[in-house]
C-alpha cells in the first residue's frame, strides 16, 4: 500500500501559497481540521479563498484566519454569528459568495467526480438563479450549476490509516468526504492514525485514493457552539 503519512500539520500545509483556494471540512465547528487551521495561522499565508459551509466563530475555526485577515473570500452557505466577519464584510475587506447548502455539497461532489455541471431545483426563481440556465424536466424547473474544485482540500476524520483511508464519526462527517475528493492535494488530519489494514474495508467512508497527506492531529478542542442539554 502507498504510504501517505506526513509528520504533522506544518508539513501537511507547507506548500499552501498566498491566494490558494482551500476547502475546509466541517459544519459549524463540528468536524473542522483544527490542527491545519493552526498551521495556516502560523504560516501566515494570505489572500485565501475558503470554501467551507460556515465561517467558524470569532475565536475558533476559520474565524481565527479571518481575524488575521488571511482570507480574501469565503464561499459558504451560512456565515453565522461572527462579529469580525461582519465588520470585514461591511467594510469590503472580505468577499462572500453564498450558495445553497445542498448545491454547495453537490458542486463539491461533482468537482471530485468529474461532473462539470448538473441541474438542481434549489434557488429557482430566486437571486441565486441570476445568470444561470434554467430548464424544465417533468414539469419542474431546474438550474444548471457547475463543479467546485480547490487547490487544497483539508479534512478532519476520526480514524485514518497510513494509506489514507478515512472513517468519520457522528455528524462530524458532513462536508469532509466530498471535499476530500475535490482537492488537487487533499490533506487529512485524524484523531487516530492506524497502520494500513486496521480499518475494515467495508466501513471506510473516504478511500485512500483521494488523500495525498495524512497525519494524526493533537490537542483537539472540539468546541460546542450550542450546548443544549436536559437534566440528568
Amino acid at each position, binding site marked *: 500500500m502507498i504510504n501517505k503519512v506526513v509528520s504533522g500539520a506544518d508539513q501537511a500545509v507547507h506548500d499552501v501559497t498566498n491566494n490558494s483556494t482551500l476547502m475546509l471540512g466541517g*459544519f*459549524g*465547528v*463540528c*468536524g473542522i481540521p483544527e490542527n491545519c487551521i493552526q498551521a495556516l495561522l502560523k504560516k501566515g499565508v494570505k489572500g485565501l479563498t475558503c470554501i467551507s*459551509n460556515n465561517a467558524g466563530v470569532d475565536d475558533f475555526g476559520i474565524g481565527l484566519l479571518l481575524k488575521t485577515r488571511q482570507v480574501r473570500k469565503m464561499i*459558504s*452557505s*451560512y*456565515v*453565522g454569528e461572527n462579529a469580525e466577519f*461582519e465588520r470585514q*464584510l*461591511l467594510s469590503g475587506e472580505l468577499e462572500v459568495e*453564498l450558495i*445553497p*447548502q*445542498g*448545491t*454547495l*455539497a*453537490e458542486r*463539491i*461532489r461533482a468537482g471530485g467526480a468529474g461532473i462539470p455541471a448538473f441541474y*438542481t*431545483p*434549489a*434557488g*429557482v*426563481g*430566486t*437571486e*441565486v438563479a441570476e445568470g444561470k440556465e434554467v430548464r424544465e424536466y417533468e414539469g419542474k424547473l431546474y438550474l444548471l450549476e457547475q463543479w467546485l474544485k480547490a487547490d487544497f482540500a483539508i479534512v478532519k476524520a*476520526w480514524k485514518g490509516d497510513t494509506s489514507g483511508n478515512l472513517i*468519520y*464519526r*457522528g*455528524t*462530524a*462527517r*458532513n*462536508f*469532509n*468526504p*466530498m471535499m476530500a475528493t475535490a482537492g488537487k492535494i487533499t490533506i487529512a488530519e485524524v484523531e487516530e492514525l492506524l497502520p494500513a489494514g486496521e480499518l475494515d474495508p467495508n466501513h471506510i*467512508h473516504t478511500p485512500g485514493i483521494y488523500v495525498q497527506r495524512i497525519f494524526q492531529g493533537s490537542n483537539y478542542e*472540539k*468546541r*460546542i*457552539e*450550542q*450546548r*443544549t*442539554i*436536559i*437534566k*440528568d
Partner: protein
Amino acid sequence: MLDKIGIAKRIAREVRDGMYINLGIGIPTLVANYIPPSLNVVLQSENGLLGIGPFPKESEVDSDLINAGKQTITMVCGSALFNSAESFAMIRGGHVDVTILGAMEVSQDGDIANWKVPGKMVKGMGGAMDLVASAKNIIVAMQHCSKEGASKLLKECSLPITGIRCVKKIVSDLAVLDVLPQGGFKLIERAPGVSIEEIKNATQGELIIEGEIPEMIF
C-alpha cells in the same frame, strides 16, 4: 391567538405515522416535543443524520453529534449517519415527506421569503433553498403579521424569496391555511378566540373562505 408553543402543537397534528420530517430552526424544532409518541416518525437533520433524539443529558454530550442548528443532540435507536451530499440527495430526491420551517413572508402562490432582509447583514440561506425547492410537502410556521401589524401573507413577497410555489400549508398565530395549487390562502381553522374578521384584516393576499371555519380545539 396561538403562542409559539401553540403553533408547534398545531403543526404536530399534521404529522402522520411513518413520516420522515425535516424541522427548521425555531418554532419547527419545538414541533418534535408534541408529536404523539404513538406515531413512528423519523427526524432528519440536514447536516447528516436520520433519527434525531432528544437533547443529551450533561453526561451524554458529544461534540461530534449536533443538529443543523448546531445544538448538541442524541440519536434514537435505528439512526443512520451520512455526509452532506447524501443528505441533500435525500432531500432533493423527495425522500423526506414533510419539511416544516419558518418564514418572514409567504405569497398566495406559495412563494416563501425567509433568508434575507435588505439592509441587514445577510447570513446565508443555509439549506433552506434546497429544502423548499425539493420537499413534497412544506408547512410554514409564522406570525401572521409583523410587529407593526403589516400582513406577512401577501399577494407577492416583498422580500427576496427563498423558493417559488412551494408552501402547502401555513400555521400562524391566527389560523391554519392551505395554499391552493391555483393560488390563494384557503382558511381551514381559526386559532382560539380569533374571528374570521381578524384573519381577513391580517391577510393581504387572497383569502378563500368556504363554509363554516372551525376554531381549533386543544
